[in-house]
Each structure stands twice: as structure tokens, then as C-alpha cells.
């Protein structure tokens, strides 16, 4: 029984098949034919429920996106972090790993130096250098040169402000962990390793606040170098054994001032959050 070429299922059979109203014989015939006939397969498409197909495709796209992501993002997603947040946090994570490495190396170097000569100078150098790293890390993480975040901001269902803050947090949070670990590992240093925390919060939040008005990169350079210059001026002529004690930023009163400045800057940033949507995208992209 050779078919007259070319045999096709025909619109009526296909419609009945999709509706489920074709009987068994016609159903089997349609199925056998569909497997081998591209033309008839295409003819089924207009009969399908388009909304349902698109919904299924959306689920597939989400799942495939998830497959494409790195382990960090998948882990966050499993923890219940919403998809777009997980993406924002983990995108370009290799970049951030290098920053974290820098910070960890800075801390380790200071600790090693300290354990060799126990000098005040090495601790002081570390305390001054440490706040620069998060500042540079945060501003570079949101200035769109180093990773595909620029693309992401335009696509993410969230404000640019949220993206910035999330990124800033993901840079700052691990540094806190590292420093806490350092304090625990070398107890005789006491709270000294954590003295750089408030300066770094202060520098970073001030940079963000000023960044809503001035170019972020320029602000970052200015604040970073200003901090180093201030440290060297304050300790000029001070005894080598009391460097930390002679820089006001590391004293209780100075730390309190830094905390206040951080808060003011944070409020300022929160108020000006809309400006992030335009300023940094336009300027540094």
C-alpha cells in the first residue's frame, strides 16, 4: 500500500487531532505522519494555545538562564533570593574575587609584618590602606567598566539605586568577615584591625553621596587620596610607636565623627536615589 505522494494530514484531521476529537485510527495516523512531516507539524502551530505555549517558554527560558549561571548565583537562588537579585549580586563575580583577594592580601601582609617586627608602622599602614580597597571596589563595581552590569541595569526589574546598593553590600559584607576572622586569629591585636571599618564606610558612603552630584570616579580619587594625605599629615612628627594613636580617625571621637558623616551621607544617598538612574549610567558607561 504505497501512499500517493505527497500525503498530508490535512487541516481537518489536524484540527480534530489537536482538539482530541479524532478517533483512535485517525489519531494514530496523524501522529505517525506528524513525526515525519515538517509541513504538517508547522500546520499544527496555528491551532495551539499561544498563551500557554508562551508561558511554558517563559518557564523554560528561566530554567535555562539558571543553568547558564555560576554556582554563586544558583546557590543564592536556592536560598530563596529572587532571581534578579541573585543575578545582580553575582554578575562579574570574578572581578569581585580579585578585589577580595586584594583586601585579604593586605590584611595578611599586615599581620605577617606585625608578627615579625610587631611594629606600629605596619599596623598603621594597613589601617590606612584598608579603607581604600572597599572604596575602590564599590565604585568600580558600579561604574560599569569592569563587568556587564551596565546592560543588566537597563534590564533588571529594579531601580539602579537598588543595584548599586546590592553591589556595594556584596563587596563590603565579605570584607567584614575577613577582618573579623583576622581579629579572632590574632587576638593580641585586639580591636585594632577593625578600626578601618568606619573610615571605609565613611569614605564609601561619602563617595556615593558626592557621586550623585559629581563624577563618581573623580570623587573616588579625591576621597582616597585625601584620606591618605590626611593620615600622613596627622602623623608627621609623631613617635613611631604611637602612629595609630595620633591619627584622630582611629580615636573614639574621630570614629564617632566618621559614623555621623557615614549616616548623613547614607541619608543623602537615599534621598537622591533617583539621580542614580541617570547620572552614573550616562557618565561612566
Amino acid at each position, binding site marked *: *500500500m504505497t*501512499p*500517493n505522494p505527497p*500525503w498530508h*494530514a490535512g487541516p481537518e*484531521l489536524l484540527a480534530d*487531532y*489537536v482538539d*482530541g476529537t479524532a*478517533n*483512535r*485510527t*485517525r*489519531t*494514530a*495516523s496523524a*501522529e*505517525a*505522519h*506528524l*513525526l*515525519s512531516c*515538517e509541513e504538517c*507539524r*508547522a500546520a*499544527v*502551530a496555528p*491551532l*495551539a*494555545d499561544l498563551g*500557554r*505555549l508562551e*508561558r*511554558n*517558554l517563559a*518557564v*523554560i*527560558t528561566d*530554567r*535555562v538562564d539558571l*543553568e*547558564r549561571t555560576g554556582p554563586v548565583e544558583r546557590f543564592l537562588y536556592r536560598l530563596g533570593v529572587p532571581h534578579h537579585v541573585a543575578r545582580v549580586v553575582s554578575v562579574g563575580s570574578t572581578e569581585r574575587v580579585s578585589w577580595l583577594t586584594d583586601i585579604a592580601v593586605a590584611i595578611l601582609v599586615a599581620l605577617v609584618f606585625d608578627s615579625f617586627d610587631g611594629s606600629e608602622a605596619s599596623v598603621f599602614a594597613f589601617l590606612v590602606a584598608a579603607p581604600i580597597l572597599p572604596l575602590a571596589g564599590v565604585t568600580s563595581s558600579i561604574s560599569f567598566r569592569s563587568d556587564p552590569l551596565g546592560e543588566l541595569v537597563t534590564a533588571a526589574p529594579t531601580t539602579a539605586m537598588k543595584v548599586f546598593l546590592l553591589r556595594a553590600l556584596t563587596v563590603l559584607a565579605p570584607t567584614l568577615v575577613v577582618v573579623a576572622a583576622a581579629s579572632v586569629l590574632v587576638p593580641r591585636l585586639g580591636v585594632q584591625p577593625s578600626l578601618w571599618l568606619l573610615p571605609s564606610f565613611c569614605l564609601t558612603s561619602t563617595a556615593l553621596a558626592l557621586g550623585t552630584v559629581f563624577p563618581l570616579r573623580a570623587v573616588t580619587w579625591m576621597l582616597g587620596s585625601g584620606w591618605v594625605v590626611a593620615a600622613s599629615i596627622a602623623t608627621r612628627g609623631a613617635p613611631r610607636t604611637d602612629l595609630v594613636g595620633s591619627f584622630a580617625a582611629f580615636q573614639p571621637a574621630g570614629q564617632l565623627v566618621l559614623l555621623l558623616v557615614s549616616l548623613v551621607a547614607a541619608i543623602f544617598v537615599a534621598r537622591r536615589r533617583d539621580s542614580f538612574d541617570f547620572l552614573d549610567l550616562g557618565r561612566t558607561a
Partner: protein
Amino acid sequence: MGETATDEALLAAIAQGDQQSLNVLYRRHAPWLTARLTHRCNDREVVDMALQDTFVAIWRKPRSYEGSGEVAAWVWGIAVRRLIDQLRRRPAHTPVAAAEVVVVSAEEEVLVGLQHGGLISALDSLSPELVAVVQATVLDGLTTREAGRLLHIPAGTVKSRMSRARVELREALT
């Protein structure tokens, strides 16, 4: 990969990580797959999940297509197995048995006669539970065990029904 690419070319592009090609493949095959899966299981939700699993599986292993035969048949092979996986997670489900009463009109006999006519007409002479087994093993290409899962019967029963069907088909065709 554009809309006009062959299925094989789309699979090659998917293997390179081209998500757009997966979308093209989906739009091409999802409509008939949905219809065919619905004939095996009348639970919309189960069918949707099986369909989703199918294309995620294709995304993961596009190279498991060995380059011979219709891509559509390969896709169906994945889809029906994903359907079985979905059904296994829901024991309460009752599969669609080929149980409707079939009255073949003369007109249909002519139509069917053009495509696998003899065999399919002969199938109609079988009882519904035998047809279901033939459909699962011969037409859907499932193993005895997989067919058993789809139809919710033991693998041994699939085998015994299959041999009964074989005998009856042979009689009907001669």
C-alpha cells in the same frame, strides 16, 4: 540561528550555547508535542511540566541527538520519557487509555489507507488495553518498563499484552 535553519543546525547551535536557537526549536516543535502529550495524559499541568522538562533536557544535552533520523522523533522520545517521569511523581494520575469506541467510517478507511493504513486498521480490531500497549511500545518507542509506567501496569503485563497483540495483529493482517 534564524527561523529557516534546519532542526539539525539548530541543535548544533544549541550545543554552542545559543539560546535563541532553543527558542526557534521550541516554537517549531512545542505545538505538536503539546497535542501529542495531551493524547497520552489529559492533565494540562503534567503536560506543561513534561514539555518544559523536555526543552531543558534538550538544552542540557543537544549532542545526544546522534545525527540520524528525524529530529522530531528524537524530541518525542525525550518528551514521552519526561512525561513518564512527571507521572511517576503523581501516583494518583490515571493515564488516558485508548478506550473510546471506534467506529471507522468508509471515508476514514480511505484516508487512513493512505498512511500506514493496513496496520492501523488492524490495530482497531484489538481491545483498548492491547492498543494502549502497542501505542506505547511500537508507536512511542518506549521500553517495556517505560510503557508500564506510562500505563500504570507492571512490566510483565506489558509483555504479555504485547505478545497477545502480536498474535491478534498477525491474524488481522493475513
